C-alpha cells in the first residue's frame, strides 16, 4: 500500500501541498484540455484541417495527442500509478502500448490497401 503520494506533476514544475490539492489541480488541467478539444472540434480552424501530417489532418493528430495526455494524467494521478513501483508501472503500461501499436499498424495499413483496391480496382460498390 503506497500511502505516500508524489505531489509534483509536469516533471516537478508544479508541486501541490496535499494529495487533495493535486486531485483538483489535475481536474482543472483535464477540463482545460477537454475544453480545447471541444473548442477545436466546433471551430475546426482551416489551418489545422487543411494541413496533412503523415496522411492525416493536423487537427486529428492534435486530438489524438491531447487524448494521450489526458490518458496519462488519469492513469498517473487518478489511478495513482505515479505512486506505484516502476516495475508495476512498466508491466501495466508498456504491454498494452506495444500490442495496441502493433494492432493499429497492421489494421490501418490493411484498411488503406482495401480502400485503394475499391477505388482503383474494378470494384463497383458505390451505386
Amino acid at each position, binding site marked *: 500500500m503506497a500511502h505516500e503520494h508524489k505531489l509534483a506533476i509536469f516533471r516537478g514544475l508544479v508541486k501541490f501541498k496535499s494529495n487533495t490539492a493535486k486531485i*483538483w489541480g489535475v481536474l482543472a488541467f483535464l477540463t482545460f484540455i*477537454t475544453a480545447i478539444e471541444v473548442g477545436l472540434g466546433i471551430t475546426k480552424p482551416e489551418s489545422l484541417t487543411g494541413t496533412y501530417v503523415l496522411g492525416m489532418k493536423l487537427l486529428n493528430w492534435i486530438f489524438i495527442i491531447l487524448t494521450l495526455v489526458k490518458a496519462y494524467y488519469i492513469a498517473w494521478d487518478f489511478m495513482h500509478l505515479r505512486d506505484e513501483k516502476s516495475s508495476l508501472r512498466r508491466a501495466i503500461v508498456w504491454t498494452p502500448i506495444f*500490442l495496441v501499436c502493433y494492432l493499429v499498424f497492421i489494421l490501418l495499413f490493411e*484498411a488503406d490497401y482495401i*480502400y485503394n483496391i475499391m477505388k482503383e480496382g474494378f470494384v463497383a460498390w458505390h451505386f
Partner: protein
Amino acid sequence: MDSTVTTGTEESVWGGGNKPLNASYGKLMMWFFLVSDALTFSGFLASYGFSRFKFIESWPIADEVFTHVPFFHGNFPMYYVAFMTFILIMSSVTMVLAVDAGHKMKKNAVIWYMFLTIIGGAIFVGSQAWEWATFIKGDYGAVETRGGRILQFVKADENSRAALADFAVTLPEERIVHKRKNGVWFDSEGYKTSFSLNEVMEGFKSNPNILIRTEVLDENGEKTLLNREQSLKKLKEAVAVVEGANLVHNEYGNRLFADFFFFITGFHGFHVFSGVLINLIIFFNVILGTYEKRGHYEMVEKVGLYWHFVDLVWVFVFTFFYLV
C-alpha cells in the same frame, strides 16, 4: 533502487509473503484485468479505425450526427458529449477523493464521495441512453440505394438539410400487410417509415428546391452536393426509405458507423453500468462499517481503479467517435 525485487535471505524470498511489486494480490489482479479489458476496447476501436480507413472517402461526419442537446432545439454539435465527458471526469475526481479519504480512515467522507460518484455515473448512463434514443430516432430521414449507399436531401435555397416531411407528398396508397398465412416463415414487418419510397420520389420531383447529397466527401471534407439533373438521375437508384439508425440501416451514412457506435458505446455503457452497481455495493459496505472493521479501505481503491478505467476508455471513445 525503486524497481528491484526485494532481497533478503533465501527463506524470505521463497517462503511467501514477498511483495516485489509492493501491491496486494487483489489490486494486482484488478490491474491485470484492466490491462486485458484495455486490450478488448483497443481491439474494438482498432476495428472501427479499420472500417473508417476502408471507407475514408464516405464516412459520416460526427458533427452532423450528434447535434442534439436535451430540452433545446437547434444545431449544437459536441456540447452534450462534452458535458458527458465532464460528468465522467468529475465522478472520477470524487472517486479519487473517496480513496484519499479512505487512506485517512475518514468514514463519512468516503460515504459522501462514493455517493457523488454513483450519482455522476447514473447521470452518465442516463445521458448515454438519451444519446442512443436520439440516434435511433434519427432526424431528417434519407433514402438508401441498391448498393446500400445513403442519399440525403438538402434545400437548395437555404443550403440546409431537408427532412422527408418537408417535401414528401401523401399519396392514397394501399399497403399490403404481410401476414403469417402468406409465408412459410413468418417475418414481422419491422419498423415502418413515415413516408413510402413513392411518396418521397413524387415529392422530390414536384419540388425543384430539393437536391441530393451523397455520402462521398469532397476535397473540403464536406458531403458532395448534386445539382438538380444529377439528383433526379441519382434518385432512380433509391430502393428504400430510411429513418433513424439501427444495425441494418443508418440514415446518417455508412451502416458500419451505426454498428460500431452501438457496439462500442454500448460496451462502454455496460461497463459504466456495472461500475455503478459495484460502487453501490462498496458504498453500502462502507456505510455498514465493513472496511472500518477491516482496518483499511483498499476495496474502495480497487473499485476506484475500475471506475477510473471506465473514464479512461471514454476519453478514447470520445476522441475517435466524436472528434476525429
